[in-house]
């Protein structure tokens, strides 16, 4: 991996300055932290399920936006990395429950082992697919990532042993080194904590030397080459990091749902993540969080209003593209243009 981010972020000139540019997300995270309390107060456990989904998808959208908004790589295969992470947890748990080893390795229900493994395998998947797809750029990159997404979708469908089309139910009791984290409220806070950590991580990464080169590459690759830097290594590293964090979100998803299925790997899901990032606003690390929450709420509310909910949803997507160029985050004031946004 290129230069680690030992240069501390130049933007954090003062605490007040940092607060000024990040208050919307601090408010949003604060509001998200209240969800279990509200859910308990109005006695509606559905609310916490819904927001668990939103928080996990927000992690994916934030990770995706690192390559999409700051690296100008329109990846249509993040559902695949998500699926890899989820399936690693589910398959390890399956073998633990079953007793039969996976090739030579025993299965495990211990998330302290399974989650790091899930992240590693997702990162490795991102490395393999990134090496091929990053040889190309622009539209080719979009099509190739879409094709790889479909490839992994078919792969999981073909895994008859692990449920194939129907998906895989996790029957073993998952735990984190003995701790039970699958209780609904506990798990929600774990997911929210991971979201907050990813925001800090990507926020620092974007402003590190590595992030600066990535953003410069997105704006003008030729100039970066002229400076004597090979952009491919940086783009690949960014792609792998983004895939790894997405795999982490997938592992959380499997833990929370106790179930994975190929529909989690569908290309439509990949497109949904892109919609979340664009709707939220790609110019800021935290923009996609808003996109994820809005889309998850829409997907939950529209079907109860009409059976044909994809129709209004599709129209909303079209309207967003036509009219809302900067995303929801722009409602809190325009982002500084230097962050590029990959456009």
């Amino acid at each position, binding site marked *: 991996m290129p230069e680690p981010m030992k240069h501390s972020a130049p933007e954090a000139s003062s605490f007040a300055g940092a607060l000024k540019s990040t208050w919307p997300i601090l408010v949003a995270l604060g509001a998200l932290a209240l969800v279990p309390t509200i859910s308990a107060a109005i006695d509606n456990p559905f609310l916490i399920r819904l927001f668990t989904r939103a928080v996990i998808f927000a992690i994916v959208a934030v990770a995706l936006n690192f390559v999409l908004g700051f690296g100008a790589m329109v990846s249509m295969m993040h559902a695949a990395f998500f699926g890899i992470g989820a399936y690693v947890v589910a398959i390890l748990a399956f073998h633990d429950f079953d007793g039969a080893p996976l090739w030579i390795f025993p299965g495990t229900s211990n998330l302290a082992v399974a989650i790091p493994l899930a992240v590693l395998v997702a990162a490795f998947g991102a490395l393999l697919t990134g090496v091929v797809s990053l040889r190309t750029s622009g539209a080719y990159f979009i099509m190739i990532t879409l094709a790889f997404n479909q490839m992994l979708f078919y792969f999981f469908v073909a895994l008859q042993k692990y449920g194939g089309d129907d998906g895989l139910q996790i029957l073993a009791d998952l735990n984190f080194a003995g701790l039970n984290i699958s209780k609904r409220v506990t798990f929600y806070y774990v997911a929210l904590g991971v979201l907050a950590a990813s925001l800090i991580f990507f926020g620092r990464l974007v402003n590190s030397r590595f992030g600066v080169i990535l953003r410069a590459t997105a704006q003008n690759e030729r100039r970066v080459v002229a400076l004597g830097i090979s952009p491919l290594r940086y783009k690949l590293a960014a792609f792998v990091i983004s895939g790894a964090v997405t795999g982490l979100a997938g592992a959380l998803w499997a833990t929370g749902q106790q179930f994975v299925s190929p529909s989690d790997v569908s290309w439509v899901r990949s497109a949904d993540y892109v919609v979340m990032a664009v709707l939220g606003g790609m110019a800021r690390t935290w923009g996609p969080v808003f996109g994820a929450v809005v889309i998850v709420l829409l997907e939950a509310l529209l079907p109860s209003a009409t059976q044909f909910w994809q129709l209004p949803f599709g129209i909303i997507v079209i309207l967003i*593209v036509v009219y809302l160029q900067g995303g929801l985050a722009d409602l809190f004031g325009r982002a500084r243009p230097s962050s590029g946004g990959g456009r």
Partner: protein
Amino acid sequence: MSFSLFIEQLLNGVQFGVMLFLISAGLTLVFGIMNLINLAHGALYMSGAFIAAAMIKYTGNFFVAVVVAVVATAGIGAVMERLILRRFYARDHLDQVLVTFGLILVFNDLVRLVWGVVPVQLRLPGPFSGSVQLMAEVQYPAFRLVILAVGLLVALGLYFVVVHTRIGMWIRAGASNRPMASALGVDVGLIFSLVFAAGAALAGLAGLMAGAISSVQVGMGEPVLILALVVTVIGGIGSIRGAFLAALIIGIVDTFGRVLLPPALGSMVIFMLMAAILAWRPKGLFPVNA
């Protein structure tokens, strides 16, 4: 694998290949000339199948239904281009992906509204629904042979139009250098609309033929769309010749992969092939504007 099975699978592969070519031809030209990624191309494929199924039920005449479906799909394509996609030629690929993704959702639900969620039957006329004795041990469905013939005829026709006519010359000029073609007096806007409508018609034709051998249902266009994207990428964006060759390769490799390899590998083999070809030639087999 016995010889008769080999012949049968080979025919299946070529037939699937020419079908993929019909879908990819429009996609690759639209991309090559207008620089537009159209994910909603699969929605046109689906529309062709549904309109044909409805017309067969309504008129009882297969050939009338085919003509109506192809013309109607071309019309839908033209309207889509005029109303929405035209605004997106100059926008970046991300916006194009999003807007055409939105269109897919809209199309799927419109079809669901009109025809419901249950797959629709597309009834073939008598002579097409039987099978033909090709060799001593090879019985082959007649309609699959029809698809093969139609696909090859369309490919020949397209080749003639693109290589030997004035319009074809404009199309090639537009695909290899759009501003230059425009500066030389080619009405690029008109060419855009024509190509888009023709591509839509071909997708509709492919859709109704595919619908006749499997079933006509919502979302049928999406897996095919992704295969067509693979064909486009392998063939080289904007190249009809590349699309034809790549479609045949994909059709044959996919068919044999599913027969010969274990399922998990067989379903992935064409994507690995794509990766291998791209590692060797990042711009595809026949890059147009390299």
